């Protein structure tokens, strides 16, 4: 049994990201004016400085950009090994999420693997984890 995940402190910038999983949504801040995404989330667009920002429920699919198999138990009772990865999100240019790839053997993760979000809830925080995924015909095109 893993220890509790370190808990982000919710604020006006990050609340939609960390709680969107309650509705099944992976929320990334999007600018209503220039249409670009800002992550880590801010209420001011990092591209055009507009304040017309709102969380956008993105597809929740993507691909593994890079990863590492972590062997070191950084906290007491942390179960190892596990995969830490950076995931490029479909339809969300220039945004990377650091996450875990779950529900598969650690040796089965590779660059370019198609993945989709799966949420793990702990005390009101919905941690967006990813699992391997075979896209159907409508998906998988960034």
């Amino acid at each position: 049994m893993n220890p509790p995940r370190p808990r982000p402190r919710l604020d006006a910038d990050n609340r939609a990201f960390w709680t969107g999983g309650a509705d099944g949504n992976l929320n990334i801040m999007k600018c209503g004016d220039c249409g670009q995404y800002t992550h880590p989330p801010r209420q001011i667009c990092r591209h055009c400085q507009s304040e017309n920002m709102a969380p956008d429920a993105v597809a929740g699919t993507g691909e593994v950009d890079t990863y590492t198999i972590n062997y070191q138990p950084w906290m007491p009772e942390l179960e190892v090994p596990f995969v830490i990865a950076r995931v490029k999100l479909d339809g969300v240019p220039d945004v990377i999420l650091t996450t875990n790839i779950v529900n598969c053997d650690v040796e089965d993760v590779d660059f370019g693997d198609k993945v989709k979000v799966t949420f793990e809830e702990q005390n009101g925080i919905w941690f967006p984890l990813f699992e391997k995924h075979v896209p159907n015909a409508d998906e998988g095109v960034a």
Partner: protein
Amino acid sequence: MGLANEAYITGVGQSEVGVRLTRSPMGLTKDAIMEAIADAGLTLEQIDGVASYPGKSHGYLGFSPVGVDEVIEQFGIKARWHFGGGEIPAQLSAIAEAANAVRTGQARHIICYRTVYEAAALSRPDEFPALQRETVDGFSQWTAPFFAISAACWVAQYAQRQTKLYGMTREQLAQVALNATRNAYKNPRARAITKEPLTLEKYFSARMISSPFCLYDCDRFTDCSTVVIVSAGDALDEVSPNPVRIAASAGKVDRWSWDQPELMACYPTGEDLWKKTDYKPKDVDTVQFYDGFAFFPIGWLEALGFCEIGEGHKFIEGGTRIALDGELPLNTGGGQIGAGRLHGFGFAHEAATQLRGKGGERQIPGDPKVAVATSGGGPLAAALLLARD
């Protein structure tokens, strides 16, 4: 004689380097300062500036236990200029700031120091309590919730990209640690950290930390203080001969993030350094590259144009080119993997030591005149070009 509007390293000093030392952080800082000012031929009365990175870290004292304010008070320094802060490009930027201060006449002789006490602090939690936090915020909220607690996990993903995209092998990566421990073994100050040079067999038998990094690809907590004295070009008649000019510095970051950019900040920083000098990579006699994790020196080699992007691991293959008698000696004092996590300042100390011909058993041949010292990884990056010219 030096030129006005130029900055020089005129002395270096270092305390004992150890693990779980009992001498106080201020005591270690004193040892390093006294050695450095004696090396420069100065007295404390002549010091009129103090600089450090990152300033005292109150939440986690082992990381930086001695504040610039405390050094001013402890040593009775009448400081015309001082600086201590973490929101600068990287550790060595404190030395770059000191260089700017003496170039603009704000001080004549500046103590630049970095005192680390991470090993001792862990062993004495009553005196040095561990960082306590109920929640994570700032950048760590984007990594810690996924148990990517250590920078090892963040940097491993850059290294893994080198493995997958460019074919870096663990044998190639291992050359950083093999070279570091071979050189550290010839550095009397590194005895507590490297008791014998690493072998490839031992490297491969070490436990993995975060692939592709094993234990020997990571530096280890160390207790030490390192000091560099930065003097004004028009004050060189006051110091010992053999100064080293700070010919250029750089610290460029395009995105301050450990996970969003494809390349670490060393890449824009390396490119920027050469825009500030007439020197070229071919003029460099030795490089002292930050190696908190073994992949960083590979990144710095590419970033500074010693090889193409994606070729750094091939450059170090076999270890001969980066050895003490190679074409580009790397981390001649052992770096952080071989000589302890001095947190950046050790690279400036060693670069100046080599250029001044004071490397003893580890001195590189050929009367070296130009060196690059760097610090940082991920979004942290600072480079100093040092020249005896």
